[in-house]
């Protein structure tokens, strides 16, 4: 409280004895305990024989500075107060809004549970509301199409297709293909990675059977996405069994890595080179692995089962061996 009152007092009692006082001599007048101006003034006066201009002005400057500082602090304090008040008001406003919304949502849910019919408002819905509703529905349907693998939209010059990829239940990247349809079907632009043989496929199928073209392209893209996903999963979940890093090319059809399999408290190191000969498959065609009896079994496993699942089975096998009584 002292701080609050202090600046106020300072302000009003600034230079009381220089400009505003009448018939008062320095040293007289009201003083607050924290304010020793008059005392200083008096001291200086007596010391420097009063009329030394440098002393006086220096003091004036100092007083001015202090007053200014006091001003600023006061302004800051009021600003702070105002800010707090504003924030508080905003919190109240938002809380009110939130509670209203919550009540609305609760009412909605209550109505749904009681199944008061499918109709929305008893009042006639506006044309705008109806159209907006329908638009949302059509958009939802289009979104479902993207789950099927091929989606798109018509453009002024043709069609822009969107090919989605997925591995089992997880959707991965989507790729775009902007096609012109007149005078003949051509690719305007695309986001297909460069290592997918787009030109070859386009040459073979684009003019005669667009559906087939998209289907084959989708096979390539999905297989690539699946291989990449498997490699990522391997690195993410089985990093303790992998020695060093996984080496792969951008098409992810060649994977080389070192791994070890724990077996009866010993670990066997292997190096394997997975070759995916079929670009439309996510299972390797050749998997020569070096060392030991297990190599042939692993090779075989790699060529039949998805990569990260093969590793899962190693882990399970290792655990079951270790835990065998």
């Amino acid at each position, binding site marked *: 409280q002292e701080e609050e009152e202090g600046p106020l007092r300072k302000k009003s009692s600034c230079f009381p004895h220089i400009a505003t006082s009448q018939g008062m001599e320095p040293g007289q007048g009201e003083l607050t305990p924290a304010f020793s101006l008059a005392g200083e003034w008096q001291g200086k006066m007596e010391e420097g024989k009063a009329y030394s201009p440098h002393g006086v002005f220096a003091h004036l400057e100092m007083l001015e500075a202090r007053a200014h500082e006091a001003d600023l602090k006061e302004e800051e304090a009021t600003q702070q107060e105002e800010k707090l008040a504003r924030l508080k008001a905003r919190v109240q406003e938002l809380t009110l809004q939130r509670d209203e919304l919550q009540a609305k949502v609760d009412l909605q*849910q209550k109505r749904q549970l009681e199944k008061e019919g499918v109709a929305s408002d008893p009042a006639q819905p506006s044309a705008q509301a109806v*159209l907006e509703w329908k638009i949302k529905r059509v958009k939802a*349907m289009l979104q479902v*199409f993207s*789950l*099927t693998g091929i989606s798109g939209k018509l453009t002024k010059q043709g069609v822009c297709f969107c090919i*989605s990829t997925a591995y089992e*239940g997880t959707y991965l990247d989507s790729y775009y293909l902007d096609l012109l349809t007149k005078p003949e079907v051509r690719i305007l632009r695309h986001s297909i990675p460069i290592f997918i043989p787009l030109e070859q496929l386009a040459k073979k199928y684009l003019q005669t059977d667009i559906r087939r073209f998209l289907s084959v392209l989708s096979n390539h893209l999905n297989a690539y996405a699946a291989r990449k996903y498997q490699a990522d999963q391997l690195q993410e979940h089985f990093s303790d069994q992998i020695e060093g890093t996984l080496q792969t090319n951008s098409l992810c059809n060649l994977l080389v890595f070192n791994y070890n399999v724990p077996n009866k408290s010993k670990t066997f190191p292997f190096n394997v080179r997975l070759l995916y000969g079929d670009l439309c498959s996510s299972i390797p065609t050749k998997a020569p692995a070096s060392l030991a009896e297990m190599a042939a079994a692993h090779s075989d496993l790699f060529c039949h089962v998805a990569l990260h699942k093969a590793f899962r089975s190693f882990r399970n096998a290792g655990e079951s061996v270790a835990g065998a009584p």
Partner: protein
Amino acid sequence: MDNSICQAYEDKIQSLEEEIKLLTEKYEDNQQESTFFSDEEILMSKKSFQREFWRESQGCESLSDLKAQLESLETDLSFLMKFTGIQFTSHSKKTVEKTRNRAVQKHRLSGNCHSLSFHLEFQLLEMQNKENVSVVVNDLSITMESGEESDVSKFVSSIEEHGNLLAFFRSLSSYAEWCEHRRCTFLHFKAKYPDVVTLPEGLLGDYIILRNSKHSGFELLVVWKIHIDEEGRTTPLLDLLTKVPEQVLEWKNPAIENAPAGFRSMLLLFGIEAAIENLIKVVSLEK
């Protein structure tokens, strides 16, 4: 001290704003999902003319903008359905959970791909991670009209087990296209040679019988099965069965015994339509 109070207020404001955003979305989702307007109502709305200037001054989209947007979306949708052969007849979606980083929706979807109808139910989980949104399918359940066939039901079980919605549609497309191709081929031959060709199981069956109306004891049965494996690869399998009177069997005519093998070679050399056409010509011969 003041600063920490301010910060506390600001944090509270931010959390309230997020709550409001989520609640608004929840309210709108619920509204959307529990409302239904019939096609007539939609048509009427498209035709209605409201005071557009009032709307625009309110900052809302004008009615004509909405109409244009709806038409463009509907055109895209009907193009996709025609192009892919996948028609969705009904779709309902319910938001089960929605937080800042996570949304779960339950979908029910019915439709058909060419002549094969399906009904799907699944959950879609959308999660916001640092770079992008991940979408995962859970709890997939599929019912197919032609689900009695063992290979189709094995395929469907494998899809359901892995939640492989995308693979389902891709495989379904190629399977349905083959079925459609078979149906069209049967229809073509039935129309061209109505006396020779019969379809005991109709156009959607998997075999046709070729017989010469004059020599009714002799029949050629062309079986055309379309097989789908667990991974969704479709393979057409064609074969020929001959039905001859017992006396003819005793003659041990090599032509009849070799007929199936001959048919298979013809398939490889000339394709399905030409091979069947040749068989029909053979059967039609006055011999």
